[in-house]
């Protein structure tokens, strides 16, 4: 009962905020809606039993990426970023107009429904498993996987992050024009 409620809340938050990202004009508001969408996805992870991934999502996205994006908007926007903001309804001619988007949406929906109809037969062979104690603590299992099976990816990710840090610091470092 509560799981369904949590799922519903998270799904509404995720999808609603994602659509709001697309339709708001102000880039700052878009960032905040993205924040809501990411929190909603963390809730969805929680309903899937992925507690560690859910908290990681909050930690990295809410505490890190969104703040970084807000900083970047602040550093680049200047005073005229509201006027230059664009949304779905104020597009340049080459990007299509309301009609092309409407037709695209319709075609997409038809495609989606067909696919769901096709996929739902395949999905039936994967019945929704009911989980007892199969994920007692994802944290220690993830730890074991990171240290044993995926140790190379674990170590390489730190090198990737080092590369990102050095590269981004070189690019963004203040210098005399």
């Amino acid at each position, binding site marked *: 009962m509560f799981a369904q409620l949590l799922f519903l809340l998270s799904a509404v938050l*995720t999808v609603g905020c*994602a659509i709001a*990202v697309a339709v708001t004009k102000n*880039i700052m508001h878009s960032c905040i809606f993205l924040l809501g969408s*990411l929190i909603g996805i963390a809730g969805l992870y929680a309903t*899937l039993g*992925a507690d560690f991934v859910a908290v990681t999502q909050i930690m990295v996205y809410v505490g890190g990426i969104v703040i970084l994006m807000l900083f970047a908007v602040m550093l680049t926007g200047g005073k005229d970023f509201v006027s230059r903001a664009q949304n779905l309804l104020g597009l340049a001619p080459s990007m299509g107009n309301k009609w092309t988007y409407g037709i695209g949406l319709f075609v997409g929906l038809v495609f989606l429904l067909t696919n769901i109809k096709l996929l739902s037969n395949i*999905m039936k062979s994967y019945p929704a498993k009911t989980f007892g104690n199969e994920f007692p603590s994802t944290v220690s299992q993830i730890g074991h996987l990171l240290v044993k099976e995926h140790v190379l990816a674990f170590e390489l990710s730190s090198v990737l992050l080092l590369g990102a840090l050095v590269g*981004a610091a070189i690019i963004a470092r203040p210098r005399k024009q």
Partner: protein
Amino acid sequence: MISLISYLIISLVLFIVGLVVMISRKNIVAILLGIELILNAAALNFVAYSRYVTNNLDGHIFSLFIIVVAAAEAAVGLAIVIRFFQIKETIHIDEATQLRN
């Protein structure tokens, strides 16, 4: 109980919205927002499949690394945006026409 297909639909909607944001916006930061949405849609699928289909935690590991890569991508991407703004005084994507100034 909640079925796999509902997660897939949410993920699909996120992916489409992210794609639309990427296509329709002319602000580079907004395009990065769209990329984040797409990456999250993929990560959500991984976790959903790992719960309903494969029944192990490899999907969790995969989505963890997606989050790591997303962080690195956002850091470098936003640094490029800031540098671009310092040179061009704008972050309109159509202004990005040269590989070097």
